[in-house]
């Protein structure tokens, strides 16, 4: 247990250990992840109201530091960055040399991740970190990162981590876990370390034993959060529904609504697709390759020399949803969705994947017969 005031030392403790400290800060009407100069940068007394295509900051009646859920960014921005310089190439007297750009070695401490964010990191570990050919940059960022999770007490209307088995409380995969308590007994955090690095930082904080009452309060908060989930999705059932819905007419309806804007894939904490961009300077002798996030919703994503494979928005939506909820299981042994609800919140037309799965389920007969 640590008092809120004592936790203010955390950023400087982490910086002293070589970390860049990143956490939630309020910026431009949203809570984003950015450098935390001090503990005071946290959005104190703020909450968010989320819905399909809707995100609003609201004042809280209390001084809670983590009284909101996920913002548009996730750990992905830091562990699998949006733009990476892969290499520089030079051409001199007809000869080409290519020099790999080293991975940015500065380790990052991510403060205020949510349990769904940790689940997304685990998913990325399987996709980018464990494969036959791993992404060395991801492994470099990931290996260096210090992860501080905050369990959720007040899920949003778009949240469905409880049904996905990824929240509202973190069970592992963090260095430090926090549970925020704020009542007549004061503002305090139940804090837990799961790694040696976490334990070492914890040891440097002024802590005291957790009273039994507070343990009960944290458990009760988790239970309340589970019951307060705005949405639900059964990952096994979703997989089965999608398996039987490949040719469903329901795809064209969502295809008509979807703008193909790619917001869902940008905010999704597990979407990992990238493209490369080769550029030269004006002399044409200095080239760079940049790797950038890409989205399967872009028209050219699946292009062959003859044209794209998926020309319709319906086909692109189907590809995304089937990958996320169905074929991801076959590739990586788990769902590609962690129930964070970001794709619902940041969809400009409010497409809700939990509703789409339900619609596909009702629109698709179990067998091939149509009554």
């Amino acid at each position: 247990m640590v008092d809120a005031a004592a936790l203010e030392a955390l950023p400087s403790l982490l910086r002293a250990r070589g970390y860049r400290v990143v956490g939630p800060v309020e910026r431009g009407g949203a809570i984003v992840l950015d450098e935390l100069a001090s503990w005071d940068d946290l959005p104190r007394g703020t909450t968010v109201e989320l819905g399909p295509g809707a995100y609003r900051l609201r004042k809280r009646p209390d001084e809670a530091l983590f009284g909101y859920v996920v913002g548009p960014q996730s750990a992905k921005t830091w562990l699998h960055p949006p733009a990476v310089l892969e290499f520089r190439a030079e051409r001199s007297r007809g000869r080409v040399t290519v020099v790999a750009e080293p991975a940015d070695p500065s380790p990052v401490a991510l403060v205020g991740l949510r349990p769904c964010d940790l689940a997304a990191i685990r998913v990325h570990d399987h996709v980018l970190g464990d494969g036959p050919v791993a992404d060395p940059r991801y492994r470099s960022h990931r290996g260096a990162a210090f992860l501080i999770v905050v369990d959720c007490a007040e899920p949003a209307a778009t949240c469905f981590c409880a049904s996905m088995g990824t929240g509202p409380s973190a069970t592992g995969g963090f260095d430090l876990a926090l549970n925020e308590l704020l009542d007549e007994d004061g503002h305090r955090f139940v804090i837990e370390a799961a790694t040696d690095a976490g334990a070492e930082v914890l040891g440097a904080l002024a802590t005291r034993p957790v009273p039994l009452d507070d343990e009960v309060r944290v458990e009760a908060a988790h239970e309340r959060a589970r019951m307060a989930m705005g949405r639900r999705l059964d990952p096994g059932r979703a997989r089965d529904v999608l398996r039987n819905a490949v040719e469903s007419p329901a795809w064209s309806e969502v295809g008509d609504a979807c703008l193909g804007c790619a917001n869902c894939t940008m905010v999704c904490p597990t979407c990992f697709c990238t493209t490369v961009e080769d550029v030269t300077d004006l002399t044409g002798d200095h080239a760079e390759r940049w790797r950038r996030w890409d989205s399967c919703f872009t028209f050219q994503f699946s292009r062959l020399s003859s044209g794209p494979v998926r020309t319709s928005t319906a086909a692109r939506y189907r590809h995304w949803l089937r990958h996320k909820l169905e074929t991801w299981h076959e590739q990586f042994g788990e769902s590609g969705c962690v129930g964070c609800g970001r794709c619902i919140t940041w969809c400009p037309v409010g497409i809700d994947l939990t509703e789409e799965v339900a619609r596909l389920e009702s629109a698709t007969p179990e067998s091939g017969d149509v009554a």
Partner: protein
Amino acid sequence: MTTPELVSSGPVIPVPHRVSAIRRETRDTFTVDLRPPDGLPVESFAPGQFNMLYAFGIGEAAISISGDPGRRGFVTHTVREVGAVTTWLGRLGAGADVGVRGPFGRGWPVAEAAGRDVVLIAGGIGFAPLRSLIYELLAHRDLYGRIGLLYGARTPGDVLFRGELEEWSKSGWVDVHVSVDRATESWRGHVGVVTTLLRNLVFDPAETIAFVCGPEIMMRFAAAELLRCEVAPGAIHVALERNMQCGIGLCGHCQIGPAFVCRDGPVFSYDVVEPWLAVEEL
């Protein structure tokens, strides 16, 4: 916290190779031999694998290896000019530098062909990765039963590797049949869809393995024809084309169903891909 790993050249960074020879095959297709830098060996490859060829500052293209896997000293690609990168490559002369990443993907399951009749069906530029396979098969000719090659091209002027076709045919190592889609009377070979040539081949369907590479529609019809001849769907292997960018299953562009074509393919057994190919815009 652990020490960050340094990014080594690995599969992400192209290694500049030198063009040692480049020759025109047809009006839009050329073959290029690339020599690795001094001191570096040619990466060994399996027929059916591909490299990412980097055009300086322009981009990359996934190109299958068309050369003899037994040849050391250079790696050979046969390229059709269809975009910026391939057109750039076609204009290079001997001595120019080309970046190479690879080889990537799973090639033809050559080991499964031992003791069996082999039917090869190629269409257009799809002949390139099968040429590499034929060299591999001929290096151990006695391991296999009959080897038949059916090759379809657009016109007589588009027929690739005429020298090899003649050599393989004359030697009796391969039963070669070439068909074109359109021709004038100066062409003395077959005219018509390549799959109709199957009746010219002698093979024991129960003991046959088939390798097919060409446009997707052509591969579907070739597979249908092989199935009609009672070749088992699991014994038919096709090479798929999708948008391959990273080559190592990390960028997502080449996904079809649950597979990343660059990593899990490009060669797949037909019973695996048949349901995928049946769905439009999958």
